[in-house]
C-alpha cells in the first residue's frame, strides 16, 4: 500500500516536473523569438519612416504657369525657357545662363529648374508607411481641410537622395557628401591601421618571447579593445586636431585653405578611427595566425627559410582570407562610428565634396545623428533613408567578407 502511494506521488511529481520543463523551454524559446522580433521591428521601423504619404504645397501652381492648362512635360524647350524668364529675376536667369546656357539645356534639366525654382514645392506634413496604409481616412480628412496641398506618395530614398549634397530643406537634401566623407575616412583608417595591426599581431605571435613585456602588450591590447569609442574621440581631439594641427590641417604640405585651416579634417577623423579599430585588427590577425598549423612553420624553417621568409611567403598568404575578413569587419565597425567623429569635430553643414584628406568632413552616421536630432518629422524621414543607405553599405561589406571567407575556406583544408 505504502509503495503504491509513493509511486503515485512520484508519478505526480514527474508530471509536475514535465510541466515545468515545458514551461521553461517555452520561456527560453520565447526570449529567442523576442530577440528576432526586435530585429524585425528595428528594420521595419526604418522602412516605415522612409516611405509614406506627404502633403506638398506649391509656391506657384504648375497649372498657372501655362496658358491653357497643358502639362509642363508636353511643352517645347523654348516655351519652358519663356516660363523661366517670366517667373525668375533677371539676375538669376543670367546666373543660370552663366552656368550653362538655357538654350543648350535638355528639357529634363529645364523642367528640374522650373520644379526647383518656380514651383518650389514644399513638404508640409508627412505620414509614415503604416499610417498611409491603415489611416487613409484621417489623411483624406486632412487633405479635405487643406485643399491647396497636394497628396503624394513619397519614397524618401531615391536616386537623387544619393546624388545630392546636403541642403537645409529635407526634400532637397542628399547624402553624397556624407558617403564620400565616409569612404575617404575609411580609406585613411585602412591605410593606417592595417599594416600596423598586422605588424603587431605578427610580432606578438611569431617573434615575441613570452615574457613580461609580451604579457603587458597583450593585456593592453585587450583593454584597448574595451575602451569606449568616445574616449578615442577625446584622444583624437587632443592629439590629431590640436597638437598635430599643422599636419592634419595640411598647412605643413602647403594646403593653406582658410576654410579648413584647423585640424578638424578627414585625416584626423581617419587616424582617430584607425586607433579605434587597431586592437580589433590585431586580435583578429592573431587568431588567424594561431589557427595555422605548426607544421607549416616547421617545414618552411626546416627548408632553411628565415623567420621573415616563413612569415612573408607561408604564414601571411595562408592566413590572408581570415585577416582580410577580420579587417573588413573592423572597418565596417568604423563606418558606423559616430561619437568619436563628433568629438573630433565633424562639420555640422558641409555641401562641398571632400577633395583631399585635409577637407572638412561629414559622414553618413553623422548625418543620421544630425537629422534624427531635429524635431521636424521630415528630417526623421531622410534620417531613415540615410540609415537604409548605411545599412546597405554595411551589408555589402559584410557579405563580401563572408563570401571571401567561404570561397577561400574551401580551398584550404588543414
Amino acid at each position, binding site marked *: 500500500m505504502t509503495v503504491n502511494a509513493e509511486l503515485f506521488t512520484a508519478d505526480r511529481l514527474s508530471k509536475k*516536473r514535465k510541466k515545468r*520543463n515545458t514551461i*521553461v523551454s517555452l520561456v*527560453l*524559446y*520565447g*526570449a*529567442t523569438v523576442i*530577440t*528576432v522580433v*526586435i*530585429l524585425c521591428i*528595428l528594420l521595419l*521601423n*526604418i522602412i516605415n*519612416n522612409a516611405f509614406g504619404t506627404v502633403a506638398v504645397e506649391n509656391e506657384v501652381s504648375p497649372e498657372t504657369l501655362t496658358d491653357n492648362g497643358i502639362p509642363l512635360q508636353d511643352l517645347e524647350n523654348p516655351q519652358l525657357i519663356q516660363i523661366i524668364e517670366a517667373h525668375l529675376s533677371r539676375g538669376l536667369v543670367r546666373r543660370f545662363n552663366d552656368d550653362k546656357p538655357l538654350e543648350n539645356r535638355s528639357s529634363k534639366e529645364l523642367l528640374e529648374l522650373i520644379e526647383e525654382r518656380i514651383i518650389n514645392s514644399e513638404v508640409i506634413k508627412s505620414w509614415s508607411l503604416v499610417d498611409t496604409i491603415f489611416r487613409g481616412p484621417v489623411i483624406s480628412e486632412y487633405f479635405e481641410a487643406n485643399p491647396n496641398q497636394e497628396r503624394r506618395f513619397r519614397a524618401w530614398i531615391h536616386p537623387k537622395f544619393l546624388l545630392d549634397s546636403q541642403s537645409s530643406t529635407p526634400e532637397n537634401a542628399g547624402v553624397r557628401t556624407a558617403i564620400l566623407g565616409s569612404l575617404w575616412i575609411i580609406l585613411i583608417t585602412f591605410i593606417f591601421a592595417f599594416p600596423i595591426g598586422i605588424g*603587431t599581431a*605578427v*610580432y606578438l605571435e611569431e617573434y*615575441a618571447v613570452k615574457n613580461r613585456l609580451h604579457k603587458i*602588450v597583450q*593585456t*593592453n591590447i*585587450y*583593454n*584597448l579593445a*574595451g*575602451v*569606449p*569609442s*568616445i*574616449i578615442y574621440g*577625446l*584622444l583624437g*581631439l*587632443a592629439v590629431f586636431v590640436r597638437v598635430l594641427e599643422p599636419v592634419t590641417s595640411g598647412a605643413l604640405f602647403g594646403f593653406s585653405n582658410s576654410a579648413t585651416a584647423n585640424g578638424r579634417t578627414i585625416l584626423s577623423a581617419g587616424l582617430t578611427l584607425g*586607433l579605434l579599430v587597431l*586592437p580589433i585588427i590585431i586580435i583578429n590577425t592573431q587568431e588567424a595566425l594561431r589557427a595555422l598549423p605548426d607544421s607549416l612553420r616547421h617545414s618552411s624553417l626546416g627548408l*632553411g627559410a*628565415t*623567420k*621573415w621568409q616563413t612569415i612573408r611567403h607561408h604564414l601571411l598568404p595562408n592566413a590572408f582570407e581570415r585577416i582580410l575578413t577580420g579587417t573588413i569587419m573592423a572597418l*565596417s565597425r568604423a*563606418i*558606423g*562610428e*559616430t*561619437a568619436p567623429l*563628433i*568629438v573630433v*569635430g565633424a562639420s*555640422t553643414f558641409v555641401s562641398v565634396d571632400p577633395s583631399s584628406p585635409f577637407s572638412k568632413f561629414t559622414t553618413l*552616421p553623422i548625418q*543620421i*545623428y544630425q537629422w*534624427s536630432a531635429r524635431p521636424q518629422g521630415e528630417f*526623421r524621414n531622410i534620417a531613415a533613408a540615410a540609415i537604409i543607405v*548605411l*545599412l546597405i553599405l*554595411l551589408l555589402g561589406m559584410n557579405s563580401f567578407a563572408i563570401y571571401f571567407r567561404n570561397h577561400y575556406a574551401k580551398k584550404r583544408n588543414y
Partner: protein
Amino acid sequence: MSKQQESVFTAESIKKKIRPGEIIIHAVLLSCALLSIIITLGIVVILVKESILFFGEKEVRLIDFFTMTKWQPMIQKFGILPLLNATLMTSFIAVLTALPIGIAVAVYLSEYASSKTRNILKPIIEVLAGIPTVVYGYFAITFMTPVLRSVFGENIVEIYNTASAGIVIGILILPLIASMAEDALNAVPRTLREAAYGLGATKMETSLKVVLPAAFSGIAAAFIVGLSRAVGETMIVALAAGAGPNFTLNPFKAAETITGYIVRISGGDVSYNTLDYNSIFALGLFLFIITLILNMISRKVVEKYREVYD
C-alpha cells in the same frame, strides 16, 4: 647553388650569421607592437593632463566634483553626480533588459536548439550586433519613446527619458551578452550534462540547475562586459536621454549622461583651454577608469573559470 653550400657550412654558422634585413623587420614589428602601449599612455597622459588643468581652476574643487548634485558650468557648479546618476540609470535599465533575455537566448541556443536552428538564429543575432549605434539611437526616439509614452501616458513620460535610452542600450548589448554567455555554457564539459541526465534530470533541470551554475563565472563576465559597454555608450543617450544634466531617479524624465554631455559640448566647436574643453577630459578620465576597471574584472573572471575546466 654550390656557392650557397660553401657559405652555409654548418647549422652553427647559419645561426651566427647576421642578417640585417631580419633585424630591421624585427625592429619594425616590435615598434608596431609598442605603438599599442603608446596609445594607452597617450590616452592616460592626455586625460590626466587636461583633468589637472580642470581641477586646477579656482572654480572647481575636487570635493565638490564628487559630492555636488549640480552640473551647471554657466554658474560654475561642477558636481558629477547628476551625470553619473543618469549614466548608472541607463546602464542599469540596459542590463536589466539584456541580462534575462540574453541568458535565456544563450541557454536556448546552447542547450535546446538543434544545430539547424542554431545555424539560422546565430547569424540573425549577429546582425543585431553589427548595426551602428546611431541607428539604435534613431530606434529609441522614433519607436521606443512613442511606445513608452503611449503605454505609461504622455504626462508621465517625457519626450526624452532615460528609460527609453536604457532599454535600447539593453537591445544593443543583448547580442554581446548572449554570445558571451553561450561561450561560457559551451565550455561546460559534456560529462556534467550526461551525469545529470543519467540521474534522471529533465532537460530543464540539467540546463538550469547544472549547466547554468557551472557557467556562472562566464555569465558574470558577460554581465560586466555588457555593463561596461552600456556605461560607455554614447549615441543612444545623446539622441534619446535628453540634453541638460538633471539629478533625478525617475526613469521617465530627461537626464544627461557623462557621454551625452561630452558629445553635446564637443559637438559645438568648443575652443581650447576653456573650462568646457577641460571638463570633457575630466569626465572622459572618469569614464575611462570605470570601464577599465570593469573590463579588467571581467577578464580576471574569464581567466579563472577557464582554469577550472581546462
